[in-house]
């Protein structure tokens, strides 16, 4: 299996530079997810790997072989498009076998391959239908099937689930995860949906504004975001951010903000002390806050509960902390009276500090 490496990849449209030097290398058989808000350059990066967009600067290596001058078909990859991109005039079997037929493979082999993939994806009853006769989910599966029949070394997915409704998307996500277990290939997957990214990826690459913000395993990114953007982008509900000042008091390091005073534990205290600037942003995930009436002042936030959203096993509370909004996620069993001011203990391991100007993690 080849490895894919992007070396200082730049893309310009006229005078506008949309990708500012992307360096990325993907391991063999790795499921890499490029994730970011729209316009961050993730799709452009994928299309450059596919060969559908030209490379303005830098190089793409597949197995150490530069490929940016090659046609898509010479790069040995298959792609699933956001709008499926099926050939409307061909039936499902023809759609899936198009590439093999172009290669003039023997008919028996093509038939076998198509049947095999159709079986795996549950498409056998629809082989003679045209794309127009299929539902959205089935079309999505055909698009996936077309990529699978090719036996390419690398699979590219360009937001493949974003045209489906929520229920179907969840279902297809599970199917993708299952396919991932059975098909051992390089996969590069683009999405703006951080849940897809978290659930599917071996490695997540968070992009923003044409730069890679951070890459790593889902857990690494979730637990140790390098900046405020990554911290806020991954995780639902998103991380809370509170402005605070770092203050030395009585030999301990404190975070003091509107409506709260928190004592920092050893690790955070050392980091905050080492950081020269005093203005910081405190980040706490909603799940790192827990209702605890007995908690001490220095380890908890005092929040006034405004709205409670019941979503089954969990409830999400919208609270107010000195004029700033804080979201708390709790088990639904805990009864929370609305409108009251309550204490929520902060999980010390779940505290993230960011420089307020550069927004980088401290």
């Amino acid at each position: 299996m080849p490895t894919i490496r992007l070396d200082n990849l730049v893309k310009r449209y006229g005078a506008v530079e949309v990708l500012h030097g992307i360096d990325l290398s993907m391991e063999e058989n790795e499921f890499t997810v490029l994730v970011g808000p729209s316009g961050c350059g993730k799709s452009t990066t994928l299309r450059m790997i596919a060969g559908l967009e030209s490379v303005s600067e830098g190089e793409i290596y597949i197995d150490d072989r530069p490929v940016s001058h090659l046609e898509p078909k010479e790069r040995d990859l298959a792609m699933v498009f956001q709008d499926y991109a099926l050939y409307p005039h061909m039936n499902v079997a023809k759609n899936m076998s198009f590439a093999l037929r172009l290669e003039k493979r023997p008919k028996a082999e093509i038939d076998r391959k198509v049947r095999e993939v159709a079986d795996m994806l549950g498409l056998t009853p629809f082989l003679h239908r045209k794309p127009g006769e299929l539902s959205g989910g089935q079309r999505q599966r055909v698009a996936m099937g077309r990529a699978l029949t090719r036996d390419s070394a690398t699979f590219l997915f360009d937001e493949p689930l974003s045209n489906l409704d929520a229920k179907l998307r969840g279902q297809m996500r599970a199917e993708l995860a299952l396919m991932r277990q059975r098909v051992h290939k390089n996969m590069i997957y683009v999405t703006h949906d951080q849940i897809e990214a978290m659930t599917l990826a071996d490695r997540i690459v968070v992009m923003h504004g044409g730069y890679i913000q951070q890459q790593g395993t889902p857990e690494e990114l979730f637990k140790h975001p390098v900046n405020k953007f990554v911290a806020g982008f991954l995780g639902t509900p998103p991380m809370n951010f509170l402005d605070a000042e770092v203050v030395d008091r009585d030999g301990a390091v404190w975070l003091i903000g509107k409506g709260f005073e928190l004592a920092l534990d050893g690790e955070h205290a050392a980091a905050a002390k080492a950081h020269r600037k005093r203005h910081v942003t405190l980040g706490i995930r909603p799940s790192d806050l827990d209702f605890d009436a007995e908690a001490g002042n220095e380890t908890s936030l005092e929040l006034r509960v405004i709205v409670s959203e019941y979503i089954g096993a969990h409830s999400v509370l919208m609270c107010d902390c000195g004029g700033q909004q804080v979201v708390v996620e709790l088990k639904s069993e805990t009864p929370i009276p609305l409108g009251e001011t309550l204490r929520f203990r902060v999980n010390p391991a779940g505290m993230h500090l960011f420089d307020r100007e550069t927004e980088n993690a401290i």
Partner: protein
Amino acid sequence: MQRATLNRMTPYAFMAPAAIVMVIALLYPLLYMVWGSFRDWNPAQTIGETEFVGFKNYVTLFYDPAFRESLSVTLRFAVIVVGVEMVIGVGLALLLDRNIRGMSVLRTLFILPMMIAPVVVGLMWRYMYHPTVGTFNRFLKSIGLEGVDWLGQNALMSVIIADIWQWTPFIFILALAALQSLPRSALEAARIDGATPWQQIWHIKIPLMMPVLIVTCLLRLIDAFKVLEVILVMTEGGPGLSTEILALRISRTATEFRELGVAAAMSNYLLMLLLILTALMFAYTKIQEAREARLRTAAEEDL
């Protein structure tokens, strides 16, 4: 009750003016022509004075070698011009479907011939085809070749070339519009699937353009059967009957031979031919619509 009836009548009241104009301007002359085609009719007579001859005009025409020749010229002309125009028009569209600087100017230039009045086109080509002072022969002679007898020996070919020059742009712009509305991602998928540019054209572009191309082709055929001005100006149907297309023969039968009944019968033959083409076109769109409806229901059943 009264009110309901009134309400039902309202739309018809609004449609009435258009319907009346259509009856007077379209149906009346058409029925007049059909009526006239069953009579032995000299322009000097009013239609009341003419003698009813039944299908005589039609039968005579059917066995008339001049009419048959004219029909055959028309068919050859129409099939050749439309065939060549389709190939060149679609080919140009495939070639020019890209973003190059100045492409919009080029496209405008390409459709200019279509905007010139047919009589002007006829005159223009007649002068260019002139045996001694025409552009073509002067050019051929300047490079040491023999001049061609454009409007003599090769008259049909010459008028065909003129028509192709004028009407290829029509097919070009429709084919280009069809091309540009093709789903981009399907073409990208084909590139990834390993299709060469030729294979993309054969396997993806042309099949997807087909509905537009078929309707375009039928529209051009209908038009080609009715062609008159350019040929009238260029050759007046000659030499002999070599370029005498039906429309020209009809007008000559009516004015020179003074046989209005026969001319009417001839018009009816042409009308029937065009009706068949039009019916084909409607049938094709109907089949397309039915197919799409079937696709939709099938897709809904499986949701």
